[in-house]
């Protein structure tokens, strides 16, 4: 019975034996080795690991931005070979289109996919309101703060109606307090507009606060070290007893890079 029940829960992202090696002048560097993982629909999974240990490379492979040297990725039942609109991506440096207003940025996805002006602007307005930027539709990126730029990045990815959202350390450049705010905002948005999320970070507090499941990665080469199911009730409290305990055990398990 258990297996039966398993099947009707749809798998959103699945990858088998993913490896990645880069050819450099000084010979081959093994960045990722034999990573296999499965993410079920509407699950918030955090890829957590020390420093720059190739987490971003793994995320780029899962999103189809760069090809793996070995192994295969399946998203939403279809093999991933190139970037595609069913996978939304928020980059670490956000990189909005500087010449487009907030509205222009958010509606860019539907626009290039040929959706008519009226429907796409209505949808874009919905997501702009969802991320709390009502009233900033005509602002240009160079007029926005760091936190606001992140919100536009998230709205832009959502507006493309992706099945899976990939976020690569989006709050890395924010100060500690704005970061807490953005983490709470992200969870609020995720709970209103459920999507499968793959979130990369090297901040343990952020990982424990956001994740349904944390995949702890080793240092380079990247391998899966351990998986932690986080079943703390939401909204989570950064200074609660079990939050701190969980955070401490994962930090201890983490590879030391220095």
């Amino acid at each position, binding site marked *: 019975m258990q297996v039966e029940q398993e099947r009707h829960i749809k798998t959103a992202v699945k990858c088998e034996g993913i490896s990645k090696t880069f050819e450099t002048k000084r010979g081959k560097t093994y960045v990722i080795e034999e990573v296999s993982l499965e993410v079920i629909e509407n699950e918030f999974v955090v890829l957590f690991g020390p420093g720059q240990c190739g987490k971003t490379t793994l995320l780029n492979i899962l999103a189809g931005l760069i090809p793996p040297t070995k192994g295969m990725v399946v998203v939403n039942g279809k093999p991933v070979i190139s970037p595609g*609109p069913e996978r939304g991506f928020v980059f670490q440096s956000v990189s909005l289109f500087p010449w487009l207003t907030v509205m222009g940025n958010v509606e860019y996805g539907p626009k290039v996919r040929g959706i008519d002006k009226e429907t796409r602007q209505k949808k874009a307005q919905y997501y702009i309101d969802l991320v709390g930027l009502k009233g900033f539709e005509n602002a240009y990126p160079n007029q926005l703060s760091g936190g606001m730029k992140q919100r536009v990045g998230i709205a832009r990815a959502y507006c493309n109606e992706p099945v899976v959202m990939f976020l690569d350390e989006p709050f890395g450049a924010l100060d500690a307090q704005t970061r807490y705010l953005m983490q709470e905002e992200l969870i609020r948005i995720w709970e209103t507009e459920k999507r499968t999320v793959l979130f990369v970070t090297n901040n343990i507090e952020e990982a424990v606060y956001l994740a349904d499941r944390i995949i702890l990665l080793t240092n380079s080469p990247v391998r899966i070290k351990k998986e932690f199911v986080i079943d703390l009730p939401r909204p989570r409290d950064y200074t609660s007893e079990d939050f701190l305990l969980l955070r401490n055990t994962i930090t201890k398990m983490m590879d030391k890079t220095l």
Partner: protein
Amino acid sequence: MIVNKRVQSSAAAAVSIFMFLLIWHLATRFSELGNILPSPIEVLTAFFVGFVVPVGTHTMFVHIVWSLSRVIPFYILGSAVGIVLGITMGWYPKAEAVFRPIFEIIRPIPPLAWIPISIVWFGIGEGSKWFLIFLAAFITVTMNVYTGAKVVDPVIVRCARMLGANERQIFTTIVLPSSVPFIFAGLQVGLSSSWATVVAAEMIRSSEGVGWIIISSLDVNDTVQTLIGIVGIGTVGYVLAIIIRGIESKLCKWNKRGI
């Protein structure tokens, strides 16, 4: 606080220009410099008088219009071709491989060095001047836009791809807009290069235009005419630059960094 900063700097500007003119005036009045260099008052009056009384064959205004009529159309044509070639060379490696070698031979040759061959090819009339102006604008604009199109931010391109843009859309919605600041930089430099070229071409062979004013003053050894020619060239050059900067600040609001 800011307002009086601007008032302060323009007041200082007025003072320093006045001092400069005063020194110039006193030098021409009380030293032997006076007999080869006219005093500023003479020059300024002659300049304004020149708009009514003809300088040589035409009034100052007509000379300026003649020069502008040569510069504007072929500056625009040269810039347009420059923008197209610059972006294609910058974004498509194959186009770069084909056009770059020939362009690299032509680029270092200053437009003025083309004067003799352009007269051989297009005669001494307007044709050679048009060709030179086209060339001046074309070379500088292509160079600036080419460097711009080559430094399109790869992360932004990846963003667009992730959102589902195809190659053609990447070109039109990402490469073109992000090259706009470089296009304006090119237009600005191209303008000063074209303006210098028309002045030089008119000095070599012409019967009207601001270049003619200053070269013909040589035959009559009339330094007042030379100086009003220089003042005319300077003011028109300055006004043209302001116009381009004005267009840029309107079209390019998103790019605070504007040159």
